């Protein structure tokens, strides 16, 4: 993620309520009614499941924690964060993308590790499995051959990723083809909008940022930091495209990080950050709220306690991810 320097005029319509008391503001849109930053600073991270959402594909987890340093410093750390370098076990490969993505930016994919999840992706590619999330046109481009990522399979996926990354850079999620290779059409942009509509308080809190991004709409006025990753999603490697946006008012800060494409596992993910400057024991610190949201077909298959268990697993993963972020600063 890169720090976005915004025109002053933009701030007039996207002002973060810097004057509000952080704890009250946090309570106004999150599930955390009462937080004591001083107490929270002594603990690792507080996580909770988000509000129930009517769409069975959706799941959300909210977290709150305190980090030392100002919001600007922490936003800068977030921007530069590379999960692979910090031992994120579920991310096999990570690469940043230029504003106009080219195939060469995905060259690392050719040297992907040869592990069981990657082999599962290769196997799915060779069969052009219905589990792959592609458009019909994209799927038709697979002409067979060696599906290994170091061979024709890698070329195929580099073509898919380059096309989608270019589409997003020029026209946001609205410019992306749907996942319709194996069933009814699903659009990542619709899923992102659905996740936000299901949580109106969060949508309102971040509207100033989100309305200027390419997430759930055409290309926004903010320039995204683009990247791609090879990720382990439930023992199957998936290729994902991500975009990050952030803004810093000089006091409070907001950021959003989204996977707007994935070859499987989930349709779209959204991670939102709200940061406030707080003083803890005389030290300049940041109170961070983080909301993780995911839309996935497999979630719709879960019911009752299975869904609770899935939420708990997601809460644990988020807590671990935050712990790595805090210790890696």
């Amino acid at each position, binding site marked *: 993620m890169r720090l976005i320097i915004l025109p002053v005029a933009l701030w007039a319509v996207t002002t973060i309520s810097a004057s509000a008391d952080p704890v009250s503001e946090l309570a106004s849109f999150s599930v955390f009614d009462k937080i004591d930053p001083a107490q929270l600073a002594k603990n690792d991270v507080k996580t909770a499941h988000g509000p*129930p959402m009517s769409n*069975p594909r959706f799941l959300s987890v909210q977290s709150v924690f305190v980090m030392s340093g100002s919001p600007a410093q922490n936003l800068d750390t977030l921007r530069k964060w590379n999960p692979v370098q910090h031992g994120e076990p579920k991310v096999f490969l990570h690469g940043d993308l230029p504003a106009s993505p080219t195939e060469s930016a995905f060259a690392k994919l050719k040297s992907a590790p040869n592990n069981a999840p990657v082999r599962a992706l290769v196997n799915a590619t060779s069969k052009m499995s219905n589990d792959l999330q592609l458009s019909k046109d994209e799927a038709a481009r697979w002409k067979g051959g060696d599906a290994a990522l170091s061979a024709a399979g890698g070329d195929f996926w580099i073509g898919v990723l380059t096309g989608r990354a270019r589409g997003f850079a020029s026209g946001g999620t609205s410019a992306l083809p749907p996942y319709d290779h194996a069933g009814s059409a699903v659009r990542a942009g619709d899923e992102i909008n659905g996740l936000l509509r299901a949580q109106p308080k969060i949508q309102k809190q971040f509207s100033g940022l989100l309305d200027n991004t390419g997430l759930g709409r055409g290309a926004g006025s903010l320039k995204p930091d683009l990247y791609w990753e090879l990720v382990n999603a439930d023992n199957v490697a998936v290729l994902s495209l991500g975009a990050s946006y952030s803004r810093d008012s000089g006091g409070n800060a907001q950021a959003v990080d989204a996977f707007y494409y994935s070859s499987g596992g989930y349709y779209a993910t959204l991670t939102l950050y709200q940061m406030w400057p707080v003083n803890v024991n005389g030290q300049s610190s940041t109170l961070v709220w983080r909301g993780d949201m995911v839309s996935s077909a497999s979630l719709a298959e879960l*019911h009752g306690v299975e869904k*609770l*268990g899935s939420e*708990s697993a997601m809460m*644990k993963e988020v807590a671990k991810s935050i712990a790595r972020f805090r210790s890696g600063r």
Partner: protein
Amino acid sequence: MRSVSFCLCVCALVLVTRNIFAFDLWPAEYSLEETYVGEATVARGPHRVSDFDESDTVLRYILTPRVSLGVLRLGFEYEQFSFGFDSAPLPETLQSVAAVVGIDTQLSDSILLRIEATPGVYSEQFKAGTTLFNMPFVIGGTYIYSPDVQFVLGIGVDVERKYTVLPGGGIRWRFQPQWVLDAVAPTPRLEYEWSKSLTLYVGGNFKETNFRVSDTFGTDSGIPKLNHAVLTYSEVRAGAGFDWKITRWLSLNAEAGYQPYRNFDFYRANIRYHQQSGAPYGMLALHGAF
């Protein structure tokens, strides 16, 4: 046949409910299960009860609405054991009709808790106006060590049982992408995910329920002390089967195997019929959630 027609009625109820109510407002889970156990023998000392078969019918329908505390579990379950006795001092039918009242909740990001009571009538044969009420309940926790490993620990409480409180537990471990060891009582299994819609398994089923027989059961059977007595019926099944997900909300489960253990225990009257010979069994079930 009564149980089969009841099955069909409940199946129809499930289908109608599914169509009437929006899934999101009224999420629910259901199961309709029928097991047939072949001819077997039990004995109490020199007294043998030979060559009787068994039918076990289970119907369950539970609404699982999401609330802020977790997931409520509100519904009912019905179970009927029918035994083909020619003449025996044992009840030909054991029935339970119970409400299901419970909740699954998160205590933390690692611990899930289930509290569930099944208040209802557990009797020799259900009759309107019966007062043979019992309310067994379970309190169990799941510790989510990782998405692939979970530990389960809990207790079951039943005041009609010989041992009122019994502990239980186990582990659920996905040790390979397609293999899951679900070693949690009462239905431990080793599962292999053949495909997204088909799971094969081998496993067991430990069943134990307490029923109270009628006021005249003992007199009618020639053992007066069994009037209004508590009978603990238990059985163990071991077999292999498959679970086929036909649609998002409907799965077919079929299983076959052997029943190596069965016990009719009027423990307060100190009268027990132990299994002398086991029998093969077959089970078919429809289940799902929406």
